[in-house]
């Protein structure tokens, strides 16, 4: 069973390696990069939502911390972008750890509300601290350079995110099939059973919340440098919901489902652009149809249908 799970990793790597050869132009290159960035975030979020069974409706806020750390610290304080990215991730981790303890005393709807509130607060902070963040208009982000080599072309960025995505898939697969990952899945399956076998439930929830927040922050930094500009929209509520939708459509507790969800929901708005103003309606309808006919998400439902399992 595990061998088959890792086989999927080789397919992912193969696709990522061959994709640049078939992409016709820079529009598709850009789309592929954004898909990969979302895929990494959704992988982290799926560990929290799908595997550990905890909801977060505020993850775009963490994305925002990373993005703005990469924008503000190099611009205003002359920090090296790598250092800024690290600082953003550290700050996100710290904040997530700090709020997680009280938050994870809550369950279900209350947990959703608390994370939602957290995301909104972060977004408001970014909008209002206009001196530093440029407010609602956003601000430019300096280029990302390392050892005198500047990441400028889409090709560079493509390989960066492709490698990050491959490593993330590998690490997620590893984590799931480890004592840590089993404890996570167990507390989802039965919290009381996992407590009596010795799982410190709150600690595990906090750990995976922090991990997924840091994933989001790092990818926020990458997004900021890649796009070269940040706006608070990156950190708004709708983006949080979009990320959760990717998890759900792709498939909860499915590593490859995360990838499929991220790819589809990043591509869909582009594909629907022809509907001119009606795209949100079509988008919503597609989501509803997915949830009605594939309630477990695309990958798990299809895997069950073809009798493979992940």
């Amino acid at each position: 069973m595990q061998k088959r799970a890792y086989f999927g990793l080789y397919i992912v790597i193969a696709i990522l390696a061959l994709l640049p050869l078939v992409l016709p132009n820079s529009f598709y290159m850009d789309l592929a990069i954004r898909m990969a960035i979302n895929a990494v975030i959704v992988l982290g979020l799926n560990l929290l939502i799908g595997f550990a069974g905890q909801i977060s409706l505020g993850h775009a806020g963490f994305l925002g911390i990373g993005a703005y750390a990469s924008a503000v610290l190099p611009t205003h304080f002359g920090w090296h972008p790598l250092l800024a990215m690290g600082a953003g991730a550290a700050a996100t981790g710290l904040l997530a750890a700090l709020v997680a303890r009280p938050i994870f005393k809550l369950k279900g709807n209350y947990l959703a509300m608390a994370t939602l509130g957290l995301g909104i607060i972060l977004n408001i902070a970014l909008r209002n601290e206009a001196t530093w963040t440029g407010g609602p208009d956003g601000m430019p982000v300096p280029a990302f350079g390392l050892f005198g080599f500047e990441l400028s072309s889409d090709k560079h960025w493509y390989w960066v995110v492709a490698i990050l995505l491959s490593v993330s898939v590998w690490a997620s697969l590893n984590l799931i099939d480890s004592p840590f990952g089993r404890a996570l899945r167990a507390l989802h399956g039965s919290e009381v059973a996992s407590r009596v076998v010795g799982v410190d439930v709150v600690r595990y929830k906090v750990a995976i919340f922090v991990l997924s927040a840091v994933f989001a922050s790092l990818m926020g930094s990458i997004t900021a440098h890649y796009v070269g500009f940040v706006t608070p929209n990156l950190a708004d509520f709708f983006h949080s919901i979009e990320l959760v939708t990717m998890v759900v459509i792709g498939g909860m507790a499915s590593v490859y489902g995360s990838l499929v969800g991220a790819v589809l929901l990043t591509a869909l708005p582009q594909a629907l652009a022809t509907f001119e103003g009606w795209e949100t309606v079509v988008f919503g309808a597609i989501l509803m149809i997915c949830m009605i006919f594939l309630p477990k998400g695309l990958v798990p439902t299809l895997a069950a249908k073809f009798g493979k399992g992940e």
Partner: protein
Amino acid sequence: MPLLDVTNLSIHFGGVKAVQDVSFSIDAGIVYAVIGPNGAGKTTLFNLITGVYKPTHGEIRLDGESIGGKSPDELARRGVARTFQNLQICMNMSAIENVMVGAHLRLDRNLVKAALRLPSITRRDAELRGEALELMRFVGLEKYAGARADSMPYGALKRLEIARALAMKPRVIFLDEPAAGLNPKETIEVDELVRKVADSGITVVLVEHDMKMVMNLSDRILVLDYGKKLAEGTGEEVRRNPDVIAAYLGAHA
């Protein structure tokens, strides 16, 4: 010194006194049964001793050390295992993984090492898989070694819980109605399994309604009624106790 010593244990849920002033002690290595009519407080007593509930009053000592009000994971560290009356199986996992979760505390739970799939982690996990398989054989579930938990029948899941508890390598195991909902043949098999567990040196505390099984297995029996201790003693003593007879037959003594 007894393994487990409970004195004046009480828990109140608002005005409901679910367990009231119950005292008893359990020697290491015996099979100890807790019986009583429905609602007598048996499962509540288990929840108190295994840390799921915190007592309102009273003292619980394990090996002389006070454990009242400690969290379930602290009790797990001290060798206290349990199963549940209403199944608590992780249906999102495979059968063998459910058993492996039982060994949680004996493993390296480091997140970073796990994410990097270090050889130390995978080696230990492979060993554990072997151990878990052995336990599944011990409880008679070898044919479900590759099964998903949600594909298994009820009777098998009851044993899977026992296997998970045994994976903790506990000193004392609390079995909450291991035979509930089983057919007569399965009940006999569970009876034999509990005997095997006790013979392996683990102290067994048992809540069970099947009197034949209780009388057959237990060294001592505690009888609860309306949260209070009604009687305690050997099977023969309890069976002859007039209060117990009254409680079970519903007579007013």
